[in-house]
């Protein structure tokens, strides 16, 4: 790199270049600059999540009730376990990364290769888990009814257990005419996704089953959802109910306030994108190590720089974990 620099006659002097401010090399310093700015971006996202949550503090979904799934264990409610597993995978891949950096300092090429490999595998497991978690969240669990005001009504039996709308909705076959663009005033096509049950079917099923109650998205002072009695439930469903929601997307969210889903997609998505790009950069560095680029350069500092980025991704996840799943 320094091959084409013209001599200025100030080499070796304080302002002549070549000395390292704060004892850090240029590349490492720039990585720290990037990390500080990226940390501020993430804290902006998490703080705005806090803003929205404080704004709707009495109607925010409880994370324990939303993320209760573990792969291969259908129907077993297991809050937290899977995220805890993901957290450990990411911390562990951080450990193998820092071991790779350490081996790099000692110029042990083979060790660097193996540790980088484990780091990449850990990152891939994490991204895969994240994708699975998204898919489960989007698919939904029990289903709910949304009111005209955009509030979510969920269904319970008299024992306080959640009931899926699929279990009680009445099947009411009716001819459904496809809406074509040419018929609409604004040329709107059919919506891309449609729920399996209509509001009418859910309402009929609810009225036919006397043991069903409605749970609102509002919380009482103990942080429990407010449950309506049978008369209130019927009145609420008949007067305010509007449409059925299954799962979550950017507009509707069966678990509660739609902003919860929006922030979930946005923050974990942005973090997942960081993990993904981290894996890609790790793979590039991995192959560079294999072909001996850093061995010839005489320094494995590149591994250290990508390591800084990888640890930062882990650091962000520690905060996302706390503010999305724990608090």
């Amino acid at each position, binding site marked *: 790199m320094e091959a084409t620099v013209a001599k200025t006659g100030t080499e070796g002097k304080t302002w002549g270049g070549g000395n390292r401010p*704060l*004892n*850090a090399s240029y590349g490492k*310093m720039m990585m*720290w600059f990037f990390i*500080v700015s990226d*940390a*501020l971006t993430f*804290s*902006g996202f998490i*703080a*705005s999540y*806090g*803003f*929205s*949550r*404080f*704004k*709707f*503090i*009495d109607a925010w979904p409880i994370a*324990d009730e939303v993320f209760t799934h573990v792969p291969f264990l259908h129907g077993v409610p297991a*809050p*937290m*376990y899977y995220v*805890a597993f993901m*957290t*450990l995978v990411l*911390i*562990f891949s*951080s*450990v193998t*990364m*820092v*071991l790779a*950096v*350490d081996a790099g*300092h000692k110029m042990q090429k083979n060790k660097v290769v193996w540790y980088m490999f484990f780091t990449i595998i850990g990152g891939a497991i994490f991204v895969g888990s994240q994708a699975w978690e998204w898919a489960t969240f989007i698919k939904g669990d029990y289903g709910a009814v949304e009111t*005209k*005001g955009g*509030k979510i009504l969920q269904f319970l039996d008299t024992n306080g257990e959640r009931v899926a709308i699929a279990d009680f909705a009445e099947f009411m076959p009716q001819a459904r005419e496809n809406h074509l663009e040419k018929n609409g005033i604004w040329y709107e096509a059919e919506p891309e996704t449609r729920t399996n049950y209509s509001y009418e079917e859910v309402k009929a099923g609810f009225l036919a089953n006397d043991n069903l109650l409605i749970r*609102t998205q*509002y919380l009482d002072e103990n*942080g429990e959802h407010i449950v309506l009695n049978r008369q209130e439930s019927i009145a609420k469903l008949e007067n*305010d109910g509007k449409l059925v929601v299954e799962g979550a997307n950017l507009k509707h969210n069966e678990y509660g306030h739609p902003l919860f889903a929006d922030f979930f997609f946005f923050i974990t998505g942005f973090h997942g994108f960081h993990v993904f790009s981290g894996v890609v950069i790790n793979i590039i560095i991995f192959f560079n190590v294999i072909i001996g680029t850093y061995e010839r350069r005489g320094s*494995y*500092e590149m591994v*250290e720089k990508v*390591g*800084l980025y990888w*640890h*930062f991704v*882990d*650091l962000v996840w*520690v*905060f996302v*974990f*706390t503010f999305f799943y*724990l*608090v």
Partner: protein
Amino acid sequence: MAHEHKLEIFRGAWKFKSNVSKIWGVFTFLCIVTAIEVVLGIIKPEVLTANRFLAMKLLNWIFIILTLVKAYYITWDFMHMRDETSSLRRAVVWTGVFLICYLILILLIEGDYIYEVYKSNYVKFDF
């Protein structure tokens, strides 16, 4: 490149023989902290959710403090902040800490204010 590693954590209470054993020590510590968080998150002890300190549940205080502890050890030992010069350390950490505290303060106060407005004014929101 030949970095000097500081090989002790917890202010010297736990010393390591090599950098590698320090890494495993920090990893063990982070695992224990995460395990405590997960167990508390599943059990949610009544004592910690019923009592509050400065308007926040004790449980949430514990979670946030443990998170900051984890963040400290990830930054200091995995990102080698412990081995950098103190001026680099301060330039990175204080910039973040001050700006983030300010941002959180402003946004949370504002969010709570809007909540009060929604709750106490004459417009119906629950329909």
